[in-house]
């Protein structure tokens, strides 16, 4: 909160500009009942957003509509519907290159149609935020929740964060801009949430007042020249070409790839601060049975922990808030003493299991079990998770599913 001697600053929408810490941690909050899509609107409303471009795809469309409403109300500077997701992701690249704090949203097949843009975003070091409401990928046609596309996104050079519920989503969107725009980071952030389960269900969300907002984006702090003709032209990577056949260009390209990945690594301390840690732990810290999960799978695992307690089995959950950067040290610490690590997932390939195995290799003796896995829009009842555990422990399955 500003003291009386400080000058009060307002953003273009007339909201009082406050520090990210104040907005995220200190401002008084009141309880509201809303869907995940509405939580996106509430976050964007407090984020001093400059630009957004939209394209419909269920279950993301409503969030994009609501950002359009904010544009009409004057909270967002530039807003329009693009021609396709490929067009949209290109248009938001233009917006961000021209110096705008930019957000867009998509789901499932839209993500894949847009795909060529994501490594380009990272390679041009634009801090665009993509809110991804994960959904199944065709075919067969599906509009149901599933998070297969996140597996594709992991290695594009974007940060990948995963919200569990509408509250997480609200806080992560605000934190996402703050972390992505750090001059030492300055790469895109994909904020993922499970479509429908979060986008379309109502829950209690604690919101700070809506007359305060994040400090506006200052493009002149970016590590790359902003393309607005107000600074000398950028002559590195934002224009081509590092593709002459010589070792200097090979080395330049390679070092740039490493630099983008390093930028993600440099986001750790900021993400740790603004997300209050890269992981969240739930349940009995001494339990040898551990669930490692993100998003809705983490929520369901928490339910499973409660059910297992009734079975006399102690269990705990390690929820990963960021996948890129991966909370390597945090996970290694947290699984100390674990005997069984279950990785429940909302996709068929088990991309999170792959990640968990990769980072725990030679650091944990626990058995990693990539189960249960659901896809195609199926829910993951806590009983299904419990059943997997009981199967392993040889106990009788009592809970009927």
């Amino acid at each position, binding site marked *: 909160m500003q003291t009386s001697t400080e000058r009060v600053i307002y953003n273009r929408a007339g909201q009082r500009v406050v520090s990210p810490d104040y907005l995220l941690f200190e401002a008084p909050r009141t309880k509201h009942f809303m869907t995940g899509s509405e939580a996106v609107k509430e976050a964007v409303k407090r984020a001093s957003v400059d630009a957004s471009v939209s394209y419909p795809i269920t279950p993301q469309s409503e969030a994009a509509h609501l950002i359009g409403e904010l544009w009409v109300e004057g909270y967002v*500077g530039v807003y329009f519907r693009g021609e396709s997701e490929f067009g949209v992701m290109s248009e938001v690249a233009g917006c961000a290159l021209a110096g705008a704090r930019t957000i867009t949203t998509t789901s499932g097949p839209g993500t894949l149609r847009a795909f060529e843009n994501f490594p380009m975003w990272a390679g041009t070091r634009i801090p665009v935020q993509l809110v991804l409401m994960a959904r199944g990928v065709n075919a067969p046609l599906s509009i149901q929740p599933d998070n297969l596309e996140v597996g594709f996104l992991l290695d594009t050079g974007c940060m990948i964060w995963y919200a569990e519920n509408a509250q997480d989503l609200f806080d992560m969107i605000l934190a996402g801009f703050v972390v992505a725009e750090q001059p030492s980071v300055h790469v895109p952030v994909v904020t993922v949430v499970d479509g429908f389960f979060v986008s379309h269900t109502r829950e209690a969300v604690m919101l700070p007042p809506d007359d305060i907002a994040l400090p506006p984006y200052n493009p002149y702090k970016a590590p790359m020249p902003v393309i607005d003709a107000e600074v000398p032209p950028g002559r590195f990577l934002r224009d081509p070409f590092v593709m002459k056949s010589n070792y200097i260009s090979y080395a330049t390209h390679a070092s740039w790839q490493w630099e983008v990945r390093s930028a993600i690594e440099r986001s750790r301390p900021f993400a740790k601060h603004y997300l209050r840690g890269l992981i969240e732990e739930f349940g009995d810290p001494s339990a040898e049975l551990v669930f490692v999960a993100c998003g809705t799978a983490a929520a369901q695992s928490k339910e499973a922990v409660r059910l297992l307690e009734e079975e006399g089995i102690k269990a705990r959950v390690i929820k990963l808030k960021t996948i890129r950067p991966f909370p390597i040290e945090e996970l290694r610490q947290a699984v100390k003493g674990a005997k069984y690590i279950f990785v429940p997932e909302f996709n068929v390939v088990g991309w999170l299991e792959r990640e968990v195995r990769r980072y725990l290799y030679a650091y944990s003796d626990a058995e990693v079990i990539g189960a249960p896995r659901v896809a195609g829009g199926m829910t993951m009842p806590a009983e299904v998770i419990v059943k997997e555990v009981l199967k392993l422990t040889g106990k009788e399955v009592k809970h009927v599913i």
Partner: protein
Amino acid sequence: MSYKIYEINEDLLDVMPQEIRDLQFKATWGNPKRGVMDLPYSKELIEEHSLCAGCPESMALRYILASLPNPEDTIIVNSTGCTSLVFPHIALHTVHSLFGNQNAVASGIKRVLEWRFPDKVKDVVVLAGDGATVDIGLDCTLQSFFRQEKITTICFDNEVYANTGGQESGLTMKGHVFKMAPKGKQWDKVPMWQLAIDSGCHYVARLTVSSPKRVETVIKKAIYVAREVGPTYVHLYTPCILEIGLNSDDGLDEMRQRDKERFAFFEYVSEPAKEVIERKKEEGLL
């Protein structure tokens, strides 16, 4: 901003390369009347190029860059192709992102710049090959016209995918045998200038780059109209001398030939565009 952003720190003047010093002392910033006639006397905004010797695309780039009325506040958006090899040599803000999304990237840039700098003129010019504009990028190209984005789109039509080694494009002539069209192209050349008119462009021109002065007038008209009214489109024949088997000094003749037939000068001006063009003429800017 102003051309001052190109000014060199005084303490470094003596160690800067000559071409950078020339940009400060011999470039034509800040003069909307600049044009191709300045080329022999001023510092060009393109230093050198890595196109084939005698490639007409290099002539086109020179004339276009010399004709921008507002280079200090112009952003050029490019696409993958032969032209993209030239962009690192251009002393302006240029963006290359992907192949075919140039008009979408430009739309984002233009809208944000209009919003961030409502009192300044910031021109956004798209410059890409025929493959990028009419094939892989046609959706983004036309949709930017539908949306009335205030950008100028310039297509370098060399009637082939040159940079990837001579594959047929949508603008190749029917029947022409190119790679990936081993039996000859199966359908007619896409009349992109007409599509541009039908899609809402306010100024459309088709020409070769055989006449520098004509290129200058067309580019200036296209930029002034885009600035005030809406999308504009310029279709330039820049033959790929390599892929059609001409010597490096044959490009000009090839264009003069086509001036009389399929690239005969053609211009379309909408009513609101006419008003802008007349006014600019009165102001002595055209």
